[in-house]
Every structure is written in structure tokens, then in C-alpha cells.
């Protein structure tokens, strides 16, 4: 990637936030569609939910929760950064947010397995 020579913690936080947001936005229609099946075709929803037991799908699910967690913490971090008057750039916040995201997703993964 062209921008890699300029990578630094805040930039990584930015790109992570963006990619997670993008991922979530792409996933959202599918998520809505699956849920809609509840009314029109509960069996199909169940069949689909069965799949979530499979490791691959599980991994994908974990990924999604991870995305949401990353984006959530990243978003809170960003709003805190922008709206609360920090005296200096809070790189540690960025790190903490990512760490928090990892924590949540690993927790999820562990409990799910």
C-alpha cells in the first residue's frame, strides 16, 4: 500500500476504524435480511442459525463482533479525542481502544467455543 511508509499508531487507528465501519456497513444488509426471515420463513432462519455452529462461520461471526467492538471503541475514542479538550494527542487511548476491542472479541471467541 502506498500509505504504508507513513503508518503510525493514530493512522492505524484511523484505518482500522474505517475498515471496520465499512465491513459493518456491508454486513448490515445481510444481517437484516437474515432476521427478516424470522417472519416469512422461520425454518430458513433456523437452518441458517445452524450454520453458526460451524467453525468457519464461527470465525466469520467472531470477525463481525470484532469489527463492531473495534469500531465501537474506536468511535468512542474519536469522539472523546475531538470533543474533550485533551492537552496532547492521546496515542495511548488509541492503543487502549484497540486492546479493549481485542479483549471483547477474544472473550467472545472463548465463550463461543
Amino acid at each position, binding site marked *: 500500500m*502506498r500509505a504504508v511508509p*507513513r503508518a503510525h499508531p*493514530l*493512522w492505524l*487507528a*484511523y484505518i482500522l476504524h*474505517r475498515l471496520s465501519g465499512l465491513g459493518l456497513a456491508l454486513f448490515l444488509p445481510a444481517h437484516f435480511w437474515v432476521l427478516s426471515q424470522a417472519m416469512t420463513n422461520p425454518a430458513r432462519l433456523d437452518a441458517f442459525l445452524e450454520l453458526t455452529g460451524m467453525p468457519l462461520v464461527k470465525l466469520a461471526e467472531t470477525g463481525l463482533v470484532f469489527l463492531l467492538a473495534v469500531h465501537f471503541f474506536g468511535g468512542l475514542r474519536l469522539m472523546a479525542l475531538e470533543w474533550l*479538550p485533551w492537552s496532547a494527542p492521546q496515542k495511548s487511548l488509541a492503543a487502549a481502544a484497540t486492546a479493549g476491542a481485542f479483549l471483547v472479541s477474544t472473550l467472545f471467541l472463548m465463550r463461543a467455543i
Partner: protein
Amino acid sequence: MTEETTIKVRVQRGTADDTPRFDRFEVPAHDSQTVLDVVSWIQQHADPGLTYRFACRVGMCGSCAMMVNGVPRWTCRTHVRKVLGDAAEIEIRPLRNLPVIKDLAADLDPFFDKWVAAEGRHHPTRTRHDPIAPVDPGSAERAQASAGIECINCAVCYAACDTVTGNPDYLGPAALQRAWTLFNDAKEADRDAILDAVTGPGGCTSCHSMGSCTAYCPNDLDPMSAIAGLKRAAARRYFRKAG
């Protein structure tokens, strides 16, 4: 230098119309040598057609900024040793996010047009016939204003910011930081005009706080926080008007 060593350099060539190409040079190495010295040596001894820009030679004018191994820098204040590291070669390109005039010389007009568009100039409350305004140098407001005042408009931050790359309307970190400085200046007459100028399309709300401006500013300034200040001020004004 006892033994004659050389530095390998890759330099982007061409004008706005050409597709850029790269020329390779080997430049004699010295103890005290900046990237600007390397570029100058090429023009003075190897390729008289090479174009670049510099003026002050000491990090005061911000004319000499270029992309060195993908990172925007003042070339006059960047020691070769700092960028060579383990790399076998130094790659030098014109400043990113700006039109190229020729070779390493970029056209800074868009950068300064945006400085003006951000209302980046003082709106006076006094004239030359009035006394000079007393200002408490220790006040919090003054500290905010002073934080970014030493910007030399080198456009390094502008070149570092990916939002500038993606959004041609984006005013960019330096212009916005200037606006924030003025906004906090006790002598400033028209803060509303400043906020209006920086909340339009391409204004402070386009910034994603990616912080490359702050990370690469050679002056250790912090445009990211200045822009956050503008966002805060704009939000405050929004709620005040609504409430």
C-alpha cells in the same frame, strides 16, 4: 571521510503533463550531509536539468519539503543518515497532494488558496494609531493561540494527510490550525467568520483525526488537536444556537 563512499538515490522526474519517471544517481557521501545537499549535488554536478526548491537552508521558510522514502520532510534539515538507515537507496519525490510543476518542485497555490479560504488572516480590532493590546501571556486562551503560531507553512502536514488526498476540497491541517490560532487570539475581531469558513464543505469536520499531520510536522506542532478544537467550538456554537 577517509574512503570515498556513495549514496544511491532515486529521483522522480517530469512535469505535470508527463507520467513521472525515476532517474538514479550515485552521490558522494559526506559526514554532514542533508537530503537537500544530495539533491543540490545532483543538479550542480550530475544533471543540470534537475528542478527543486529551497531558500533558507535552515528550516525557516518551508520551501524545501519533499517526499523522502515516502515520508514528507524538510530536506534542508534532514540528515541523510536519518533516512538512509538500512535502506539501500533514498527515494526522493515531490511533495504529495500537490500538483507538480517540474521534478521535485510542487505547486503550492492550492495550499495557500486554502489558507486564505479558511480565513487564515487577522481581522483587526485596532489600527496603527491605537495602543498595542495588552495580552496576558500566561492565559489559557493565549496558550491555545500560541501552540500553532510557529507554523512555517511548509505543507509537510498537508502532504502527510490522506484526507487531503481523497478530498480535494479539504482545507487541510495547516490552514485549519491557522484558523484555530486566530480563533483563540484575543485581538481577533470576527470569530464567527472563522467558524463559518471552517465548517463548510472540506472544513474541520472532514478531518478524521488520523494524526499524520501531528506525527510528521517537523516543527513539533499539533494540527490534529487544533482541528479538534475547531470541531469543539463549532459543536458548542451549534448547541448554543439550538438551546
